[in-house]
């Protein structure tokens, strides 16, 4: 049984102008000790999907799924109280903005110790000991002194290390890292990522890494899930994905990389992700797809099998050629 199993997860927000579907039928699994990367342009619902797993969405959100199970427990039927015993303990999340993710009014030591107290019931001295251990593990020099530091006295990189320490505090089975390095300096990014991955290896936790950075994906992930407008449009192990993308969106992403896999951010493809009001009726990528046909405009694309990377497409690519397409050369999208 996978550590995290998501089947057909949908999240809708109540907005002033009606329901907005931010996550649309996403299915994912993560195993113990595995790194799954989730990539996709801004607004593709990556964060919302993972916040739904954590149960951290605001009340305006409606979450539905066929399965939402973690470590053998059904998260859908878990009471809020029971769920709070899971998150922050067995399942932890790290956010994009380390500087604003720590409470400015409490010391580093307090914020690490809080999880230890609430979940593990450690005594004050045990908490202190474990906190020092954790700060050491995340590479913070002079940990004893740092315990009494306030967040504003830390740099962005240091804050993210503290966030990682908090996430690791109760030895979780799964860590969800939502763009953990985006807000940091380039030099620090690599360090934080390395730290995260090495700690993940040591402790055999599952890691979901949400990122914009194809370079990060190539270097760290084992499997990659590509998201577009709330849908998962392709999923493959990292090697095959880079070698032979099956969905036109993935292919376009990779083709637009300046030097394959080395670009720092998601390359731009002409056009934008559809929002609440301009959702295409069938394939959501259709307005931007160079292979789009009438069928793509009228018929919702099927989910392909594992061989075609679970691509959500009428004409999945094989080595760049759309299978079953009336005109395999495609058209050029007007920029």
């Amino acid at each position, binding site marked *: 049984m996978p550590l995290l199993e998501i089947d057909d997860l949908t999240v809708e927000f109540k907005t002033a102008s009606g329901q907005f579907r931010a996550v649309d039928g996403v299915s994912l699994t993560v195993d113990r000790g595995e790194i799954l990367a989730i990539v996709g342009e801004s607004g593709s619902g990556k964060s919302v999907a993972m916040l739904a797993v954590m149960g951290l969405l605001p009340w305006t959100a409606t979450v539905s799924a066929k399965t939402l199970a973690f470590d053998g427990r059904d998260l859908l039927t878990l009471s809020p109280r029971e769920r709070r015993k899971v*998150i*922050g303990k067995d399942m932890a999340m790290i956010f994009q903005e380390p500087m604003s993710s720590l409470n400015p*009014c409490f010391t580093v030591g307090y914020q690490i110790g809080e*999880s230890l107290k609430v979940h593990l019931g450690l005594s004050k001295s045990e908490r202190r000991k474990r906190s020092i251990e954790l700060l050491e593990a995340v590479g913070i020099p002079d940990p004893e002194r740092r315990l009494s530091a306030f967040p*504003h006295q830390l740099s962005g990189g240091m804050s993210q290390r503290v966030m990682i320490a*908090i996430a690791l505090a109760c030895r979780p089975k799964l860590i969800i890292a939502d763009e953990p390095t985006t807000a940091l300096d380039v030099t620090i990014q690599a360090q934080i990522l390395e730290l995260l991955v090495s700690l993940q290896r040591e402790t055999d936790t599952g890691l979901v890494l949400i990122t914009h950075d194809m370079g990060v994906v190539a270097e760290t992930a084992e499997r990659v899930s590509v998201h577009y407008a709330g849908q998962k449009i392709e999923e493959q192990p990292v090697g095959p994905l880079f070698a032979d993308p099956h969905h036109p969106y993935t292919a376009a992403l990779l083709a637009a990389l300046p030097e394959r896999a080395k670009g720092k951010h998601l390359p731009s493809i002409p056009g934008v992700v559809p929002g609440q009001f301009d959702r295409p009726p069938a394939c959501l990528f259709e307005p931007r797809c160079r292979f789009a046909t009438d069928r793509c405009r009228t018929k919702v694309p099927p989910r392909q099998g594992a061989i075609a990377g679970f691509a959500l497409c009428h004409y999945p690519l094989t080595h760049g050629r759309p299978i079953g397409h009336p005109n395999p050369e495609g058209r050029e999208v007007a920029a």
Partner: protein
Amino acid sequence: MLGFVVRRVLLVIPTFIAIAFLTFIAIRLVPGDPIEVRTGERGISPERLAQFRHELGLDQPVWKQFLDYLWQLAHGNFGTSISTHAPVLTEFLTLFPATLELAISAMLFATILGIPAGVIAATRRGTFIDYTLMGAALTGFSMPIFWWGLLLVLFFSVNLGWTPVSGRIDLLYYFEPVTGFMLIDSWLSGEEGAFRSAVMHLILPAIVLGTIPLATIARMTRSAMLEILGEDYVRTARAKGLSPFRVVGFHALRNALIPVVTVIGLQVGALMAGAVLTEYIFSWPGIGTWLIESINRRDYPVLQGGILLVSGIVILINILVDLLYGVLNPRIRHAR
């Protein structure tokens, strides 16, 4: 930190001179002087009048009177009351505990109810509870003290007879003041029923005086909480699996208190103004009643000295609030 306090205290001096000047002029613009007011209809012979005026220094040019007054103040002398001949400072210190007791009770009432009300409204944003609480706060905020006070007296004291109409304690009880705070003194006196009587006397005035601060604190807490509940660190707290009570009442509220404390500090000035009216309604023997009487008697030294002393207290409390702000906000604490 010490430098900060010293700077703040030095800045107070020009403020004091300005206040002294304004009260000095204002009271002299009111028709009639202390002697005329005292002799009233009976009148007084011009010679006697001139003699009295001379004794009080009122025959001097106003600018000279003012400079003399400043000189006196510089020596820590707040003058003597024209009507009682007691030193102004002594009278002030005797009466101030009554006002302080009333003000503290009012602020406690306002804070203890206002902060939870604001927190509840913020967490129930847009619901019936939120609208009810904030509607009540708006009403409380716009309530004229005098009218509100009389309304409560009519209802609770006159109609229901639950609370006394005026004073600090029943005339039955007598004991020497120890602290000047009636609640404490009545407790210490050991007289049966004295403490209860003191509490009953305090309730209505404290509610009347505390209503506007209550409304302000509730509204400020709500808006601060609404802002803070959207902060990343609140999400972090929830991601730790903490209970909603801990997330809202501890992680969020701790941050919301920073602006709320500032607002409480800013209320102190308004509170003193409100205290004057409240004391008047309830014949509460404090600074407010004392000041109003001093106006009626044109007791220049009492009014001038009294207002200066009250201002001094307000400024002092504001400095204390600033220091508290530093304690609450680690970022400020380290910057100083």
